[in-house]
């Protein structure tokens, strides 16, 4: 194991996103602030409570998770794609780093950014008096695990994409719609019967439901099912990304 190499890789990736902190940190925090203000403070006053929880407190975990997902995905996908685009991936390929270390390096950057963005939104939530925290450990586990899943998904897309447009396709057509439909702003018990069943096939529902449970104590779904879905996705995606790095798909000529 090349520990120093891996540590350097992670630090380089983290430094890259701090270099453009306005885009990588400030943007999601401002976006979350606006969401919390509009949906929580303004609309929330009319909605009142959901399942006995003030609406602002109910939507905060959803907004937080949505931004964590997007940040983790953007970090790994843009980092790897830019390395491919500028050919600086060659700097990594000729270094004595194992394929596992390369994947872990990119993934660590994504998880770190996801966690930093998530904690920042938590602070924003505190200023609105919207934060409850019932299970800190579960909260941290979800933050890290979901960041890791979307970090891996970002790597997969960065390997596949041949243009910046392709890089954003998944975000536009999958991540954003599924996040919104996964219960960011509502409990799925508020949906009509058939839609409730369909919503349960949306994995984002379990990500949001889990973090909402950790913060408010309320959950729509079986927590074990959610945990297994996240663990299953992580294992499948990690193996797939590792395998693609090993064979050098789209990174070695």
């Amino acid at each position: 194991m090349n520990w120093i190499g891996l540590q350097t890789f992670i630090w380089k990736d983290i430094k890259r996103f701090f270099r453009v902190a306005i885009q990588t940190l400030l943007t999601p925090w401002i976006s979350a602030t606006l969401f919390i203000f509009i949906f929580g403070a303004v609309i929330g006053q009319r909605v009142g409570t959901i399942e006995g929880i003030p609406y602002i407190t109910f939507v905060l975990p959803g907004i937080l998770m949505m931004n964590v997902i997007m940040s983790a995905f953007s970090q790994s996908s843009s980092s790897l794609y830019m390395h491919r685009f500028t050919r600086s991936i060659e700097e990594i390929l000729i270094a004595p780093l194992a394929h596992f270390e390369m994947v872990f390096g990119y993934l660590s950057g994504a998880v770190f950014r996801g966690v930093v963005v998530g904690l920042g939104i938590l602070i924003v939530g505190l200023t609105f008096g919207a934060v409850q925290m019932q299970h800190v450990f579960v909260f941290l586990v979800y933050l890290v695990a979901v960041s890791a899943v979307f970090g891996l998904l970002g790597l997969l897309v960065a390997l596949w994409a041949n243009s910046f447009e392709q890089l954003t396709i998944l975000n536009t057509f999958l991540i954003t719609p599924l996040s919104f439909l996964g219960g960011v702003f509502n409990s799925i018990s508020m949906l009509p019967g058939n839609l409730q069943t369909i919503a349960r096939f949306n994995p984002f529902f379990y990500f949001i439901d889990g973090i909402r449970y950790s913060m408010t104590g309320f959950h729509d779904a079986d927590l074990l099912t959610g945990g297994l879905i996240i663990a299953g996705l992580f294992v499948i995606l990690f193996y797939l990304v590792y395998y693609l790095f090993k064979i050098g798909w789209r990174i070695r000529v």
Partner: protein
Amino acid sequence: MHALEVKNFTKRYGKNLAVDDISFTVEPGEFFGLLGPNGAGKSTTIHAITGIARTSGGMIKVFGTDVESDYRDARRKVGLSPQEFNIDIFEKVRDTLTFVAGFYGMHGVERKKRVEEVIKRFGLEKHADKRFKELSGGLKRRVMLARALVHKPQLLILDEPTAGVDVELRHELWKHLQELNKEGMTIILTSHYLEEVELLCSRIAIINHGKIVKIGSKKDLLKDGKHLEELYLSITQSEDAAPL
């Protein structure tokens, strides 16, 4: 033990055969020139040695270490200065060198000392805190060389190291390379400047259409009083150039 052993190396891109079953060795301490026209297979061979390209067949060893099966150990022994600038252009020179040294396992005082050494060696002191994109073409070339050397490789591979560099700097880089070779470093050089290869290299291979068509010591290749350019043109322009 050879510094580099290439045995029956073949590389295909789809149906296109880029390198066709070539074999050659480079001995420790040699300054070896690899010549050939564009698309002949020079860069592909270099890419396979360094790990940027996959091999389609054959075997490549660097100081006895297989570049595919034992790739991490092999990578430690090689430094590459590529033809194109494959570097994070927003990163400062010192940071780039520090990161690369870290990739190779250097840390703490050792890393800092080594980075300052190469910065000094290539006269980059005044530019070490500038971003790569702010540098002139010549300075960029120096950074590429410094990056290739920061982890003290045993084998240095230079793919067109003086492309786009003015005459003064070219001579300065030659001096650096000759010093490194005198210190015992094995160097492989590809260049379109034949006088550069003639001046620096002790042994030369000419590759054409993916095959090595001539290989030997500079003394043997130029024994009839020919210049390298004449020999090169006679080989590469000859349609019936017989592969070795």
